[in-house]
């Protein structure tokens, strides 16, 4: 990865973070914390990894992305807007009556959304079904699913892992956003799902652990996933909930709460400074 490519991804991630803050502020509700923790991943997926076409969102051979942790729709929407699936101004309609941007993703309303999600644990099963179907159809596309680390407390997630391993779905890549927080607190305090990577390995997935804010590690992990035959790949990425906005970082309270006007101003000031710093590089 060249410094320029890395910088482009960093700029994209900062703009996605601005979209998350602007849209949840405008909606006066929504889920900024987990959107921000995955913002770097959203940037990488939509700027580099996914073979998708904003001009033809329903293109049959596109890669599929399922946001299994559907409550972080603000992050997905900001990435889709950045990639040109719909105008960025539309982000400000999030959660409003008549908006295409529902509180949780709806595949029939929003261009670029491959599956309606929101009820935790189901998206990863859907992604496995997509990967299984793609193999049957002889399609060369890949399927990606993003899970929350709290989400993996749902038993269905592990049913999906069994299916993905049994049918050798090496076209499937599941990513766990390990920001260590869920609504009620630290995941280890609520109901301990650790050790996450060991569990995924035990279910037969090729498992890679990375720093979820490091694009070079992300690039290597996705390359490894593409090169791995016979088994699905899991990428466990260590992240920080609320990343990029100082007062939101590592705070469970920002799971499902929107910034007020003052908090919005502060967040945008911080994100603008990050962008300026990147541009000066």
């Amino acid at each position, binding site marked *: 990865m060249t410094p320029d490519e890395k910088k482009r991804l960093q700029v994209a991630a900062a703009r996605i973070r601005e979209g998350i803050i602007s849209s949840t502020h405008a909606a006066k509700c929504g889920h900024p914390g987990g959107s921000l923790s995955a913002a770097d991943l959203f940037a990488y997926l939509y700027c580099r990894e996914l073979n998708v076409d904003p001009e033809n969102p329903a293109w*049959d051979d596109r890669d*599929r992305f*399922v946001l299994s942790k559907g409550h972080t729709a603000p992050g997905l929407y900001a990435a889709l807007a950045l990639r040109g699936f719909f105008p960025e101004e539309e982000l400000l309609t999030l959660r409003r009556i008549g908006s295409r941007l529902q509180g949780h993703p*709806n*595949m*029939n309303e929003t261009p670029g959304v*491959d*599956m*309606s999600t*929101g*009820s935790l*644990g*189901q*998206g990863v*099963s*859907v*992604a*496995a*079904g*997509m*990967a*299984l*179907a*793609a193999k*049957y*159809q002889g*399609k060369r596309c890949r399927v990606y699913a993003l899970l929350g680390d709290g989400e993996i407390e749902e038993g*269905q997630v592990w*049913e*999906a892992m*069994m*299916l993905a391993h*049994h*049918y050798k779905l090496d076209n499937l890549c599941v990513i766990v956003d390990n920001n260590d927080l869920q609504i009620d607190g630290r995941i280890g305090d609520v109901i301990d799902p650790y050790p996450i990577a060991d569990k995924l390995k035990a279910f037969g997935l090729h498992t890679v652990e990375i720093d979820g804010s490091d694009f070079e590690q992300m690039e290597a992990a996705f390359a490894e996933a593409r090169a791995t035959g016979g088994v699905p790949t899991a990428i466990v990425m260590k992240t920080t909930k609320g990343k990029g906005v100082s007062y939101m970082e590592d705070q469970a309270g920002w799971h499902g709460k929107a910034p007020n006007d003052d908090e919005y101003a502060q967040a945008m000031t911080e994100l603008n400074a990050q962008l300026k710093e990147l541009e000066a590089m």
Partner: protein
Amino acid sequence: MADVKKIATRDSYGSTLIELGRAHDDLIVFDADLAGATKTSLFKKAFPDRHFNCGIAEGNMMAAAAGAAAMGLVPFASTFAMFAAGRAFEQVRNSIGYPHLNVKIGATHGGISVGEDGASHQCCEDFALMRSIPGMVVMCPADDAEARAAVKAAYAYRGPVYLRFGRLATPVFHEQEPDFQIGRGEVLLNGGDVAILATGLMAYEALQAGAALREKGVSARVINLCTIKPLDEELVLRAARECGRVITCEEHSVIGGLGEAVCSLLSEKLPTPVRRIGVNDEYGHSGPAVELLKQFGLSAKHIVDVALAFCK
């Protein structure tokens, strides 16, 4: 009676899947460790590469089927009604119903005619659960011929469909596959004193009841409603208008099924006295299916008794 051919609609389901599978390579089948019982094992034998056993994980199976449908395939996902509609309700609602994906749910072992396995496996709530999902088609074929036609219609229809089949071999009273349309009922017997509306295995019982009532001087109109949702409103309203009394018959709780669908329609558009025959807000129990059906009043004899008292 003895010479009437009997076939379980789950067998009709399995063999029709093969017929459809030969003609359409976009049809695939999911099962949850019950392929022998749901009869998708027949499809597996014919098309081993198109049958995907998901193991004992019904919620995962329903969501995986949704994923396959999102890729353009037409998945039939099968397990017992209890687990398809009950255990996996929320997956069906959120991953199949809400995105209106083209998944066909083939639910076998519906109702108390499951028999000896008892209440834990006798699902009498599936119509209620599946009817409550917007956009879901709910069907319960009456015999082998209608089951074959319904499975084909479900394949041809674009959108989610719930099909309920039975474990028990039941009489085949259609001479051939009926001219079947989703949402359209079928008049089995004409009459003007009372309308008997039935679904599933109760259609044959209603037909027998209609013949017995005729001998007692009561003219019953017997209607088979394979599609519970969307209901054939025109046919039901006409029967209510012309007969003035309606009896509903289903192997399902009287709560939330055909009876309540008919009552909702009639109370709003044409208030008409109704008697609901079904499972009366109770659980089933173990026993031979035929005996259980009699005990729970799911029989021609009970329909006759209700109709005679109703028409007094």
